[in-house]
C-alpha cells in the first residue's frame, strides 16, 4: 500500500476566527468580501441583541410580579420586543448574502478561477493530483464550505455571543447572578483551545484507516476475476473482512476520543448552570433575591444551555471548513511555468535538445541526463528504447509539461521558455496512445483541433483520417454525442478521430506516442493510412515499440536510462552491433513464433 504517509504539517490550533474569516474573504473574492464582512457583523450584532433581549426578561418579570406595575412591565416588554425585532431584522439582512445569491455567485466565481488556474499550473503538478481529488475540491469543498459558511457561523455566534450578552445584561440587573453566569465562559475557552488539535489528530487517524480500507476494497474488486479463477475469493474476502473489523475498531476508538472533549465541555456547562441556579435558590432563601427574578433567570438560562453546551460541535465544522479553504488557497497559489523574455516565435520548426537534464519532482533519480539531439525541420525522428527509459519524458519536455533543470529545449533555435505559453501549443500536435474524447459531439471533438474550421474542413480532415465510414454509421452521424456511445467506438475508431483532430490542427510539429500500440489489426491498418496523411511535410517525433514501423525514419534515437546510446538511420544501426541490433533480432524472433513451438 503506497498511501501517503507524509501528511503536510498542519498549522496547529493557533488559527482563530480571524484566520478563518480572512480565508473566507479571500475565497469569495474582493467583489463580495465587503458584503461578507457586513453580513458577518450583522450576524454577530443580531446574536448580541438577542442576548440582551433575553436578559430583559429579568426586569420584565420583576416589574410584572414583585410590585405588579403593568406600565413598567409593558415598558420592559416593549424593549424586549424591540430588541428581538431588531435582532431578527439584522439577521434577515445578514442572511441576504446567502439568499440574494451573492454567496452562490461568489462560489461560481471561485470555481471559474479554479478552472482557469488548472489551465496554467504545470501539468506535472496537475497530474500528481487525481481527478477525483480535484473534483471534490472544486465541487465539494467549494459548496460545502462556502455555501454553508454563514449558516455555521450563525449557529456559532448564537451559541457564544448570545449567552455572553445575556449574562452581561443580567449583570446589569443583578450583578451577582450575571457574574456567576459570566464565570462559565473562561472555563470553556481553554477547553476549546485544547479540543481543536485533538479533533485534527482523530480525523487523521480515521482518514488513514479509511484510505487503507478503500485501497483494500479496490484491490478486491479489481482482482476478483483472478481470485475467483484461483478459487480464493473467499479467503481474500476474509482478509478484507478483517480490514473492516479493524476499521470499525478505529472508528469506535476515534469516536470515544473525539467525543471526550465534547462531553467534558457539555458537562461543565450543564453542571455550571445547575450550580448557578442552586446559588440563585440560596440567594432567594437568604432574602436578597426575589423568586420572580430567579424565575426569569431560569427562563433565560434554559434557553442558553443547549447552544452553549453544543457549540463545540460547530467548531468542528469550522475546522473542516478551514482545512478545505486552505487546500483551495494552496491550489490558487500554485505558480505557472515561468515565461522568459524577450517573447519570440520560431521562424522554422527544427527541434534541438541541448544538454538536457531532467528529474521529476517526486523522484531522486534523473529521468533524462545530458541529452543532446538535433531534429531537422520536416524530418522523421524515432525514439526507441525499453519502457521507462525516458522517451515519453522527452516528448513531454517538448510539450512543456515541465522545464528541464539543466540545458534547454528549442524549436527553430528559440528556447521554449521564450515562446509565449499559449502559442507554443499551436506549434505542436500530439497523438497519444490513450485517446481522450470529450463528452461532446463527434463534430466538436474533431473541431477542437481548430475551433474556427468550417464544416467542410472538418469533413476533409475526417476523410483523410479514415473516419467518414464509421461516423456516418453512427445513430446521429456527426452530432452523435461521444459520451454516451464512446464505449461503442473501437480503439481504432477513437484513434482515428484523434488523428482527424490533429490533421485539422495542421501544426508544423507532430508527436506520435505509440499511436498503434493498442489496436487490433484491422483498425491498425486504417490508422496507419491516417497517419501517413498526417505526417506529410511535418517535423515528426514518433515513439514506437515495433521497430519495423520506423525503419523509414530519417533518424533513430536509441535511449536507455535517460541517455542517448545510439543514433542514426536503420541501415547503419542495424549494421552496428549494439542495442538496436539486439532489439531488432529479438523482435524478428518474436514474429516467427507460433503456437506450435
Amino acid at each position, binding site marked *: 500500500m503506497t498511501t501517503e504517509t507524509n501528511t503536510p504539517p498542519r498549522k496547529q490550533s493557533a488559527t482563530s476566527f480571524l484566520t478563518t474569516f480572512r480565508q473566507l474573504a479571500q475565497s469569495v473574492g474582493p467583489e463580495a468580501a465587503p458584503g461578507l464582512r457586513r453580513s458577518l457583523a450583522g450576524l454577530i450584532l443580531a446574536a448580541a441583541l438577542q442576548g440582551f433581549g433575553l436578559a430583559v426578561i429579568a426586569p*420584565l418579570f420583576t416589574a410584572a410580579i414583585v410590585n405588579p406595575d403593568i406600565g413598567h412591565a409593558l415598558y420592559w416588554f416593549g424593549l424586549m420586543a424591540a430588541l428581538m425585532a431588531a435582532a431578527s431584522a439584522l439577521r434577515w439582512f445578514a442572511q441576504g448574502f446567502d439568499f440574494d445569491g451573492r454567496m452562490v455567485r461568489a462560489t*461560481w466565481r471561485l470555481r471559474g478561477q479554479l478552472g482557469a488556474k488548472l489551465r496554467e499550473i504545470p501539468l506535472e503538478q496537475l497530474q500528481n493530483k487525481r481527478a477525483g481529488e480535484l473534483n471534490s475540491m472544486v465541487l465539494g469543498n467549494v459548496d460545502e464550505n462556502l455555501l454553508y459558511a454563514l449558516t455555521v457561523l450563525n449557529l456559532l455566534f448564537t451559541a457564544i455571543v448570545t449567552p455572553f450578552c445575556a449574562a452581561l445584561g443580567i449583570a446589569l440587573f443583578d450583578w451577582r447572578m450575571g457574574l456567576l453566569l459570566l464565570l462559565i465562559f473562561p472555563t470553556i475557552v481553554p477547553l476549546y483551545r485544547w479540543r481543536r488539535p485533538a479533533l485534527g489528530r482523530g480525523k487523521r487517524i480515521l482518514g488513514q484507516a479509511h484510505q487503507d480500507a478503500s485501497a483494500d476494497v479496490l484491490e478486491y474488486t*479489481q482482482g476478483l476475476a483472478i481470485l475467483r479463477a484461483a478459487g480464493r475469493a473467499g479467503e481474500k474476502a476474509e482478509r478484507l473482512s478483517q480490514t473492516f473489523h479493524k476499521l470499525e475498531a478505529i472508528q469506535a476508538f476515534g469516536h470515544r476520543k473525539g467525543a471526550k472533549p465534547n462531553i467534558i465541555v457539555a458537562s461543565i456547562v450543564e453542571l455550571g448552570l445547575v450550580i448557578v441556579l442552586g446559588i440563585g435558590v440560596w440567594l432567594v432563601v437568604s432574602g436578597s433575591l426575589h423568586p420572580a427574578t430567579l424565575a426569569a433567570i431560569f427562563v433565560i438560562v434554559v434557553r442558553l444551555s443547549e447552544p452553549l453546551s453544543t457549540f463545540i460541535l460547530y467548531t468542528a465544522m469550522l475546522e473542516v471548513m478551514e482545512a478545505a479553504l486552505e487546500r483551495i488557497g494552496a491550489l490558487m497559489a500554485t505558480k505557472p511555468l515561468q515565461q522568459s523574455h524577450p517573447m519570440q516565435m520560431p521562424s522554422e520548426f527544427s527541434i534541438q535538445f541541448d544538454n538536457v537534464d531532467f528529474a521529476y519532482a517526486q523522484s531522486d533519480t534523473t529521468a533524462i541526463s545530458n541529452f543532446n539531439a538535433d531534429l531537422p525541420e520536416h524530418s522523421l525522428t524515432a525514439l526507441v528504447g525499453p519502457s521507462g527509459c525516458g522517451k515519453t519524458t522527452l516528448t513531454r519536455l517538448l510539450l512543456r*509539461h515541465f522545464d528541464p533543470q539543466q540545458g534547454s529545449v528549442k524549436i527553430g533555435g528559440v528556447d521554449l521558455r521564450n515562446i509565449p505559453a499559449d502559442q507554443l501549443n499551436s506549434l505542436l500536435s500530439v497523438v497519444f496512445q490513450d485517446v481522450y474524447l470529450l463528452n461532446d459531439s463527434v463534430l466538436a471533438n474533431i473541431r477542437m483541433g481548430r475551433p474556427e474550421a468550417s464544416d467542410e474542413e472538418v469533413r476533409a480532415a475526417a476523410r483523410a483520417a479514415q473516419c467518414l465510414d464509421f461516423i456516418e454509421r453512427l445513430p446521429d452521424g456527426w452530432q452523435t454525442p461521444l459520451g454516451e456511445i464512446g464505449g461503442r467506438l473501437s480503439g481504432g475508431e477513437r484513434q482515428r478521430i484523434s488523428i482527424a483532430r490533429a490533421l485539422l490542427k495542421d501544426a508544423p510539429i507532430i508527436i506520435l506516442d505509440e499511436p498503434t500500440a493498442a489496436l487490433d489489426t484491422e483498425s491498425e491498418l486504417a490508422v496507419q493510412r491516417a497517419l501517413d496523411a498526417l505526417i506529410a511535410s511535418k517535423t*515528426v517525433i514518433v515513439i514506437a515499440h515495433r521497430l519495423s514501423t520506423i525503419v523509414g525514419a530519417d533518424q533513430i534515437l536509441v535511449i536507455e536510462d535517460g541517455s542517448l546510446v545510439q543514433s542514426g538511420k536503420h541501415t547503419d544501426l542495424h549494421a552496428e552491433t549494439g542495442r538496436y541490433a539486439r532489439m531488432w533480432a529479438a523482435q524478428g524472433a*518474436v514474429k516467427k513464433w507460433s503456437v506450435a513451438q
Partner: protein
Amino acid sequence: MAVDTDLNEDSPENSAPPIRKKRASPWRILKPVQTQIKLAMAISAGSALFGLAVMLQLMMVIQHLLAHPETVPWLWFIGAAICTVAAYVARLGAFNQAHYAAFRLERILRIGLAERLARVSLGYVETQGAGALAKVIHDDVKALHVFVADSTPLYARAYVTPVVTLGLLIILDWRLALVALLILALGYSILTRAQKQRRDMVRKYNTAREKVSAAVVEYVQAMPVVRNFDSGKTSFGRYQDALDGYLTVMLDWYRAAGFPARFSWLVLSPMPTLTLVLGTGLWLTSLDDLSVSRWLGVLLICTGMAEAMMPMMMLRHMIEKVTLSVIRIEEIMNAPELQHPSTVEPQSRLGLDPSAPALQFDNVTFSYGADLDPALRDISFSVPEGSVTALVGPSGAGKTTVARLIPRFWDVTSGRIMLGGHDIRDMTSDQLMEQVAFVFQESFLFADSIAENIRIGNPEASDEAVIAAATAAQAHDFICDLPQGYDTPVGERGVFLSGGQRQRISIARALLQSRPILVLDEATAFSDPENEAELIAALSALMKGRTVIMVAHRLATIRDADQILVFDKGQISERGDHDDLVAKQGIYARLWNNYEQAQNWSLGGTDADRTIAQEEPAQ
C-alpha cells in the same frame, strides 16, 4: 441549504403503496442493527422526557419559593438536578449507541457486499466496473454514517418533544398553548409554500451538480490533450457552461423558495414564540387570570414545538442525501447470483469422461441482456484434449465473449458448455477451477510479495515449486534482480513492475496451478514489447501439453493452431487450419492480408523501406 423541507411524511403521494415500495428507504437498510438503533432512539426519547421534567421541576421550585421564600425546596431542586444529569447521560448514551450501531452497520454492509460480489457473475463485476463497485463498498456505505449515527437519535427527539410539549402546554394553560400553536401553524404553512416545487428543484439541482462534477473530471483528465489542442478553451467552455447552469439553478431556487424559507426560519426560531407568549402572559397576569408558576412553566417549554421543526428539516435533507447511496448498495445486494448445483458435493472430485472432448460448446447462444441482441448465436465446436484452438475475428465479433463464458463470467442463454462431458453449470466453481487456468490480457497483481502473487494459484506450493514456475515463465532472472528477490512487495496493483514483468508473473501463476485446460484471453497482446521474447518463451512453456483456447490478434502466432475458429457478428463463419482458411478467400484470408500489410507498414515509408521491412524481421 436553507431551502428544503418536507414535513408531511405521510402525504398521500408518499403513502401510496406501490410508490413507497419502489422508493428506497434508508430505514430499511438499518435492519441488521435495528435493535440497537431502536434502543438509541428510545434512550433519546427518554432524554427528551427528562429534559421536560427538568422544566416542570424548575417551575415547582419557583412555585415553592413564591409561597415559602424562606425554605429551600430541596425536593424539587434536587429532582431538577438529577433529571438534568439523567437527560444529559441519556442523550450521550443515545449518541453513543447510535454511533456504535452505525460503525457496526458499516462493517456488516461492507462484508455483505464483498461476499455478494464473490458469488455474482464476473460479468456483473465487469460491467459495473471494479472502481465503481469499490466506491459503493467504501464511499456509499460511509455516506450512511451521518444518517445512522447522527440522525436517528435526533429523529426520536424531534417527534417526542413537540407532542409531549403540546400536552403539557394545554394542561398548564390552554390559551398560551394556543398562541404557541398558532405561531407553529404560521411557520408551517409558509414552510409548505417553500417546498412546493421542491422535488423538481432538487432534481434540477442534482442534475446541475452532476454536470459540474462530470465537467471537472473531464476537464482535468483531458488536460494534456485539451491543452495541446486549444489551450483548454473548448473544455473550459464546457466547464464554464456547467458552472453557469449550476448558478442559474441555484439562483432560481433562491428566487422561488428563498423568501418563504427565510421567513419560516424566522418564525420558527424560538424568539418569536417566547416574545409572544411573554406578552400574552403579561396581559393575562395583569388581568389576574394566570398564576406566575404556570406562566413560568409555559415559558420554559413553549419553544419546544417550533424548535423541533429545524432538526426535522435537516433530517429530511439527510435522508434524501443518503437515499442514492442506499439505492446503489441495495442494487449490489440484489445482483443475481450465479446458479450453483445443489446436488453436487462441493468437495468431491469430478469423474471426467476421458472419451468426451476436453471442452465442447453445444449450440451456445448468449446475450448480455434480455433486451439486447445475442452476442453469440448458436456456437458449436469441440476442442480435443491437448489441441490448440484459436479464436479470431474482427473486434466485437464475440471471441472474447466465448473465452469468458468458460470461467462463467456469465452463463449461457441457451445451449451448454461441456467440460470433460459435464455441463459447467453442474460443477462447483472449485471443480471448474481445478480444470481450467486463465491468463487475461490485464495481469493483475495483489499488493503482496512476488512469491505470494505466484502462489495465489496454489497456496501450499513449496518455495522450490514457485521458483520452478517463475523460471519456466522467464521471470526468475528479473525477480532475483529485485532488492528482496521473491519477497519483494509488488506495490499496489503491481505498479513497481513493467507490464511484461507482470504478465510473466501471471503466467508463472498459471504454471503453478497446473491445470489441464488453459484459456488465453489476448495474452499475446503484449503490453511491453521490450519483453516480447521472454514472454513468448514463457507462454510456450505454459502451453506445453495443455489443451489451449486462445483469443489472438497476431495472426502469425496461430498459424500452426490445430483449429482456427473465425468469428463474425457472433457466429462462427469459418473454421479449419491456417492453410485451408487462406485458400478459402473468405474473412480469414482478408484478416491475414490486412495483418501482413499492417506488419509491413512503416511511418513515412517509401517502397525501398517496405522491402527492408518485409525481408529482415522474417529472417
